[in-house]
């Protein structure tokens, strides 16, 4: 009896265990989706678009399941076995071999194929027409308004001149009738308080000059030395709306990733488009732009004459055009500046001069780049002489000389020790930067 029962239980248990196994034998799209993501198939394939490898939709119609299982699990072995289709595919994609996925069982490959078969087609949204034209350009209408005001002011002046001339002519012919109008004070005098209006005109003018003229002269002076030729705040529109906030801020790319020559060269270098393509070969933001490449990223492709959909090996056309970035930081021709000297030797952070670049959507010139600004730093910044073996003896001598002979406080830091500054190294010599 007990044994009979046990047999029943055992049977039930076997059924219970084998049922999921049986169910697993049928390819499952859900399982396939998980495997597709877990194995990063998406890094080389998309369903509806050629990426590194071919688009996958309809692949089960193009090839037999058996063929696909062999290819996906180990395409190298499959090619060596002499399969003509496999070798043709390898050649078509310029010998870019697919990774080997022997970790996947044939059944798991079937799951993935099932997922590809049943994946929903992308919904084609209606092209957005609103919002693009809605934004009007206000700058023009303001100019038109200003021009109109100016025209009316001129008309008013001319009319009043005409009126005065007519009045004078009339008064010459008939002085008595127009005597009262001729003797009337000019408008601006009538508007002033009586006391001021009766003042001597010369005194009044001097008075006005003092009140208005002096502050204006001060403003003019300040303007001419701090604004003319100084481009602090200059933030021009660039040909590509590249966001430093996104790349250097959110994604935390090191400045040197793009400005790679900053430690070796006078210039920090504008990155070659090659550098953009390190990521933007794959990052196209199609999900944001209704299946199309983002218009800003498309500009990179246009400049390179690159077609992501083209056959492998033929993506790059032969008509590239350089991108004309607008230069922001521009030193006059007669001033020499070297990035490597400041970044590599002086160990300055980029932000010391360029401001919080990693928070700038659009880059603007953060500092004045005036000579006084350079000199300020050359006078005050301390040089890390301690870890400089090359000039160690020289630095030691300078320090001891100053300690023994110098009582000039500018050579001493807040801690009372001798502080070596760029100025002491000749950083104020004219010919260091002007030659």
């Amino acid at each position: 009896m007990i044994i009979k029962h046990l047999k029943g239980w055992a049977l039930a248990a076997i059924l219970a265990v084998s049922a999921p196994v049986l169910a697993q034998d049928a390819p499952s799209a859900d399982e396939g989706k998980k495997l597709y993501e877990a194995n990063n198939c998406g890094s080389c394939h998309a369903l509806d678009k050629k990426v590194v490898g071919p688009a996958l939709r309809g692949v089960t119609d193009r090839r037999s399941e058996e063929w696909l299982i062999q290819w996906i699990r180990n395409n190298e072995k499959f090619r060596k076995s002499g399969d003509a289709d496999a070798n043709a595919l390898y050649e078509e994609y310029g010998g870019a071999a697919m990774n080997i996925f022997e970790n996947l069982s044939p059944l798991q490959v079937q799951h993935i194929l099932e997922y590809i078969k049943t994946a929903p087609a992308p919904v084609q949204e209606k092209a957005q027409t609103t919002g693009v034209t809605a934004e009007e350009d206000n700058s023009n209408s303001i100019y038109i308004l200003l021009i109109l005001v100016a025209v009316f002011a001129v008309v008013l002046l001319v009319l009043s001149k005409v009126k005065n001339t007519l009045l004078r002519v009339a008064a010459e012919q008939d002085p008595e009738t127009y005597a009262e109008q001729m003797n009337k004070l000019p408008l601006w005098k009538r508007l002033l308080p009586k006391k001021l209006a009766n003042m001597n005109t010369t005194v009044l003018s001097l008075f006005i000059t003092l009140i208005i003229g002096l502050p204006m002269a001060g403003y003019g002076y300040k303007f001419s030395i701090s604004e003319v030729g100084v481009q602090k705040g200059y933030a021009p529109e660039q040909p590509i709306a590249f966001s430093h906030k996104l790349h250097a801020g959110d994604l935390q790319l090191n400045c040197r990733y793009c400005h790679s020559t900053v430690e070796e060269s006078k210039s920090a270098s504008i990155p070659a488009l090659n550098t953009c393509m390190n990521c933007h070969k794959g990052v196209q933001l199609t999900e944001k732009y209704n299946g199309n490449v983002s218009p800003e990223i498309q500009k990179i492709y246009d400049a390179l004459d690159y077609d992501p959909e083209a056959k492998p090996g033929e993506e790059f056309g032969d008509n590239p055009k350089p991108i004309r970035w607008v230069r922001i930081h521009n030193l006059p021709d007669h001033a020499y500046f070297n990035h490597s000297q400041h970044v590599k030797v002086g160990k300055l952070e980029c932000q010391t001069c360029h401001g919080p670049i990693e928070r700038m959507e659009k880059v603007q010139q953060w500092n004045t780049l005036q000579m006084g600004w350079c000199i300020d730093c050359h006078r005050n910044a301390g040089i890390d002489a301690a870890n400089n073996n090359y000039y160690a003896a020289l630095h030691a001598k300078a320090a001891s000389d100053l300690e023994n002979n110098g009582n000039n406080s500018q050579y001493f830091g807040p801690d009372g020790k001798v502080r070596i500054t760029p100025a002491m190294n000749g950083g104020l010599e004219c010919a260091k930067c002007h030659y």
Partner: protein
Amino acid sequence: MKKVNQILLSATLASALLGGCVSRGNDPGWEYAPDMYYSKGYEPYSQADSSALNPYGMSMRTPAVGSVAMGKSDYVYPYENNGAGYELAGAELTMPEGFSDADGRGQYLYDIYCAPCHGAKGNNDGAVFQKAANLKPAWKGYSDPYIQTLPVGKIYHTLTYGKNNMGSHASVLAPLDRWKVINYVKQLSMQSAAAPAASATENAASEMETAN
């Protein structure tokens, strides 16, 4: 006295106009001697006028095909950018003779050029991969046996030409620097493999160092 008034009036207007000459937005503002600001001779990144000979107003020329700069002969790379070249590089290329990375430049460069995607420890968890997961390669990280056994020549080939979603880093990494990065990648790879046995980690690292 009318003169004085007129002068005052025009001065007011002038100062108002001057205020409009401050640089902001697209406007660089006033420059009192543009020929001193913009070099007539070509400087790096100076923007020249376009002409028939220089249609894009560039201050640089594309070097003639095949030209090699003085002292840059190590940039010459014989393998072609295709599957066969990749295999050949894997079979033939080895670390340059007498290679050493005493000052840790490999790690320094890795943190700049590789970590944004592959992560500081090579686990494919850099900020870029976190945001754009579709770029991730099929292998999980440097601990993957695929990377551990990957010949250094193949990695060098990949750094030079790019592979799949990864682009070419030849323009930002000098040849010797590429080897230093590869050396560090292999170190990371061995370290992460030895990580479960904590005591073995240091041995692996020191072994790597002595091996190089």
